[in-house]
C-alpha cells in the first residue's frame, strides 16, 4: 500500500512538473538554475549536494557505455524533433514573407488559389481602378494582372522526373509592387516576347533553368533571360509577361488574379468594401499577407503534429533508456551512497545529485542533437506541393526558439529519467546496501 502511494505521488510530481515546464519561459529556467546554483554555493545542504554530485560525475567516465545511452538517446529525440519543426517553421516563414499588408490580391469568389481563379479583362480593370489603390509617379494605379500556370520540368539530376513548376505571368508595375524582387543575373524579360526570368529557388531545384537556356512550354520555345531573388515563395516561380503566358496557354484576355499596391494598410477596408459593393464583380479580396499565410496553415500544422508525435514516442523510449542507465549507476554506487548516508549525509543531497547528473547528461545530449540539426539542416532547401498545385521551394529554419525547445525537451526527459532512480537511491536501506558485495 505504501509503495503504491509513493508511486502515485511520483507520477503526480512528474505530471505537475511537465505542465509547469511546458508553460515556463526561458527566463523562468534561468532563475531556477540561478536559485539552484546559489543554494549549492551558500547552504550546508547545498554544498553537500555539490560534493556528492562531483563524486558521481567523476565516475561517469567509468560508465561511458551506459552514460552514452542517455546522451545519444536524447540527442536522437531532440534532433528529430527540431528537424521536423524546422521544416514546418521554414515553410510557414517562406510563405509569410511572400505577402505583406501593403498589397492586396483579388481572386474570383470561392477559388482559394490563383490556379483555380479566372477574372475577365473587364473585371480586372474595375479592380485596378478601385479606390484605395496607390497611384504611381505617372498617375496610373500600381497593379499587376497575373496568371499562374503549371509546367512539367524535370528535377536536377533526375531527367525522367516530372515536377509541377509554377509559371507566373506578371504585368504592369510588378517591380514597384513586389519591391523585394531583385534581378541577380541577366536582365528582366521584355513584355511581348517569350522570355522568362527564374527564381533562385526554382533554378536550384529544377534542371535547365540557367540564363541563356531555352525550354519548351505549351509547345513553344521560351528563353531564360534572368535570375531573381526575393527570399520568399516567389523564388520557386518562373516569371514571364502575362500576355505572352496567356497566349501560350490559350487563356485569351482573362487573368487569374490582380495584385494591387494600397495607399496604406488602412486603405484595405475601403478597397475591399468598394469591390464588394460593385455588382459587376464576384471576387474574394485579401491582403497578400493573409492570402499566403493561409496557404501554409495546413502543411505547417501536419508537420508540427507529426514532429511532436514522433518526438513523444521517441522520448518515451529515451526516458526508459535513461531510467535503465541511472538505475544501473545507482546499483554500482550503492555502497558509496550508503556510506555517505551512514556518515550523516541526508536524503536530499543524494536525490538532487543523481537528478543533476542525469540532467547534465541530458543537456549534453540535447545540445548535441540540436547542434547537429542546426549545422546540417539550417538553410537546407527542399520543396513540396503548394496551394497552386505546384512546387514551393523553402528552406529549413532552425531558429533560436526551436533550439531552446529542443533543450527543454532534453531536460524534461532527464528530469523524469533521473527522478525515479534518485528516489530509490535515497530510500536505499543503509545496512543492506553496506552489506552487499
Amino acid at each position, binding site marked *: 500500500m505504501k509503495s503504491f502511494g509513493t508511486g502515485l505521488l511520483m507520477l503526480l510530481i512528474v505530471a505537475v512538473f511537465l505542465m509547469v515546464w511546458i508553460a515556463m519561459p526561458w527566463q523562468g529556467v534561468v532563475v531556477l538554475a540561478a536559485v539552484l546554483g546559489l543554494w549549492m554555493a551558500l547552504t550546508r545542504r547545498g554544498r553537500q549536494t555539490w560534493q556528492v554530485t562531483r563524486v558521481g560525475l567523476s565516475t561517469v567516465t567509468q560508465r561511458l557505455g551506459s552514460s552514452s*545511452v542517455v546522451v545519444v538517446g536524447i540527442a536522437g529525440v531532440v534532433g528529430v524533433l527540431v528537424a521536423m519543426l524546422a521544416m514546418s517553421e521554414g515553410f510557414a516563414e517562406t510563405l509569410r514573407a511572400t505577402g505583406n499588408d501593403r498589397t492586396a490580391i483579388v481572386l474570383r469568389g470561392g477559388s482559394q488559389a490563383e490556379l483555380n481563379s479566372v477574372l475577365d479583362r473587364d473585371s480586372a480593370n474595375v479592380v485596378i481602378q478601385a479606390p484605395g489603390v496607390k497611384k504611381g509617379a505617372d498617375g496610373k494605379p500600381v497593379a499587376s494582372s497575373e496568371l499562374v500556370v*503549371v509546367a*512539367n520540368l524535370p528535377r536536377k539530376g533526375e531527367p525522367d522526373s*516530372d515536377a509541377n513548376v509554377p509559371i507566373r505571368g506578371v504585368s504592369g508595375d510588378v517591380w514597384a509592387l513586389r519591391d523585394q524582387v531583385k534581378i541577380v543575373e541577366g536582365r528582366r524579360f521584355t513584355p511581348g516576347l517569350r522570355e522568362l526570368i527564374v527564381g533562385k529557388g526554382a533554378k536550384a531545384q529544377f534542371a535547365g533553368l540557367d540564363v541563356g537556356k531555352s525550354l519548351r512550354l*505549351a509547345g513553344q520555345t521560351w528563353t531564360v533571360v534572368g535570375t531573381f531573388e526575393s527570399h520568399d515563395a516567389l523564388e520557386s516561380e518562373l516569371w514571364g509577361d502575362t500576355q505572352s503566358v496567356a497566349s501560350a496557354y490559350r487563356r485569351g484576355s482573362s487573368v487569374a488574379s490582380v495584385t494591387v499596391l494600397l495607399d496604406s494598410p488602412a486603405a484595405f477596408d475601403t478597397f475591399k468594401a468598394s469591390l464588394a459593393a460593385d455588382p459587376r464583380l464576384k471576387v474574394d479580396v485579401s491582403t497578400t499577407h493573409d492570402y499566403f499565410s493561409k496557404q501554409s496553415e495546413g502543411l505547417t500544422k501536419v508537420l508540427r503534429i*507529426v514532429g511532436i508525435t514522433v518526438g513523444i*514516442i*521517441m522520448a518515451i*523510449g529515451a526516458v526508459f533508456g535513461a531510467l535503465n542507465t541511472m538505475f544501473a549507476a545507482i546499483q554500482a554506487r550503492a555502497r558509496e551512497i550508503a556510506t555517505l548516508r551512514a556518515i550523516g549525509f541526508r536524503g536530499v543531497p543524494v536525490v538532487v545529485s543523481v537528478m543533476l547528473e542525469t540532467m547534465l547528461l541530458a543537456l549534453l545530449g540535447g545540445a548535441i542533437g540540436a547542434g547537429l540539426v542546426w549545422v546540417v539542416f539550417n538553410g537546407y532547401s527542399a520543396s513540396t506541393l503548394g496551394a497552386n498545385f505546384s512546387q514551393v521551394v523553402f528552406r529549413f529554419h532552425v531558429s533560436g526558439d526551436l533550439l531552446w525547445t529542443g533543450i527543454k525537451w532534453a531536460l524534461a526527459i532527464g528530469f523524469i529519467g533521473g527522478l525515479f532512480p534518485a528516489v530509490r537511491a535515497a530510500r536505499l536501506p543503509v545496512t543492506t546496501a553496506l552489506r552487499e558485495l
Partner: protein
Amino acid sequence: MKYLHLIWAALFRRKSRTFLTLVSILAAFLLFGMLDATRAAFSSGGSVVGVDRLITTSRYSIIQSLPSSLATRMQAVPGVKTVGHANWFGGIYQDPKNFVLSFAVSDNYLDIYHEIQLSPEQRKAFETTRTGAIVGEALAKRFGWKVGDKVPLQSTIFPQRNGDKTWPFDIVGIYTPAKGAANGTDQQFFFHYKYFQEANAYRSLGDTVGWYAIQLTSADKADSVAKAIDALSANSDHETKTQTEQAFNASFAKQLGDIGLIVSAIMGAVFFTLILLTGNTMAQAVRERTNELAVLKTIGFSSRSVLGMVLAEGVLLLVLGGVLGLAIAAVLVPIVAKGSGGMLNLPPIGAQTWLLGIALMVAIGALVGALPAIRAMRLNIVDALAGR
C-alpha cells in the same frame, strides 16, 4: 529450443531492467509501424488491380486538357482495350476545409476501374441519372451521406453556366473498393462527364478532357502502347505523356516531398539509439552472469551452445519488445486514420511491414547479442570462477 527456459530465465533475471529495455524497444517498433504506414499512405502506387492501366496526360502540364477527339485514335492502337477519361472537379462540401476528391468521368470509367464495385441496381441508377454521383464508403461515412441524398458540391474551379458555383448531385450509389485497390479509393466521388460538360460555364472546355485512362489487353504491352499513343500527338500543340498508373501515382506522390527519405532518416536515428541501448543492456547482463556462465560451461555446456544462448537472448529480447510495439501500432494506426477525418489515409499494417519489422528485430537482436556472446564463448572457466 530445449534451452528456451534457460534463456527465458536469464532474460528475466533482473525483471526491472528487462522491463525498462522492453519498453524502449516497444517504443522504437511502435514508431516503426506508424511511420511505415505513413510512408505507404504517401507512396500510393500500391494498387495491384491497376497494373493493366495507363494514364495519358498533357506532356507540358498537368493543368492542360486534351482534345476529346484523341479517344477514337487511341482506341485504334493495338493492345488498347478501353479508353476512358476523367476531369478534375476540385469539389468542396459546405466548407473549404471539407475537400472532396471528385472527378467527372466517362461512362466506361467504371469498367476500367473495376475495383469500384457497385451493386447492379446502383450501377443502373448511376447510368440513368444525369446528376447522379457515386461515392466511396469512407467518404459517405465522413459526411453522413446516404443513397437518395441530394448533395451540393462547390467547385473551386468551375462555375455552372448560370453563374452558380454550387453543383447539385444525387447520390445514387455507395461503393466498396475491391481488395487490392489503391489506398484512398474509398474516399472518392464520381459523376457524369456529360453533366459536367453541359452545365459548365467554360464552353471552351466542351471538347476537351482532363486525362485519359486506358485499359490494356495485357499488362506486358504497357511500354509499346504508351509509345504508340504518344506518337499520335507528337509535334502537335497537345503532345501527350503516357505512363503506367503506378508510375503516374509515384511521380505525383514524389512531388509532395520525399516522405520515404524522411521516414528512413528518422528510423535510422531511432534504430541507432536502440542498438546502443540494448547493446549496453546485453553487455551488462552478461557481465553480471560471468559466474553462472562459467558454471554452465563447467557442467558440460559447449562454448558454442553458450554463444547460441546469449545470441538467442538478444534476439528474444528484441522480438518480444518489437512484436508488442508493432501490435500496438497495428491497433493504433486505424484509430489515427479514423481520427484524422479522412485527412490521413493510413493503410492498416500489412504483412510486408511485419516481415520487415521481424527481420529488423532479429538482425538488431543478433547484432547486440554478438559481442557479449563472443565474450561468453571465450570465457575461461577458471578465471571466471575465480572472479579475475
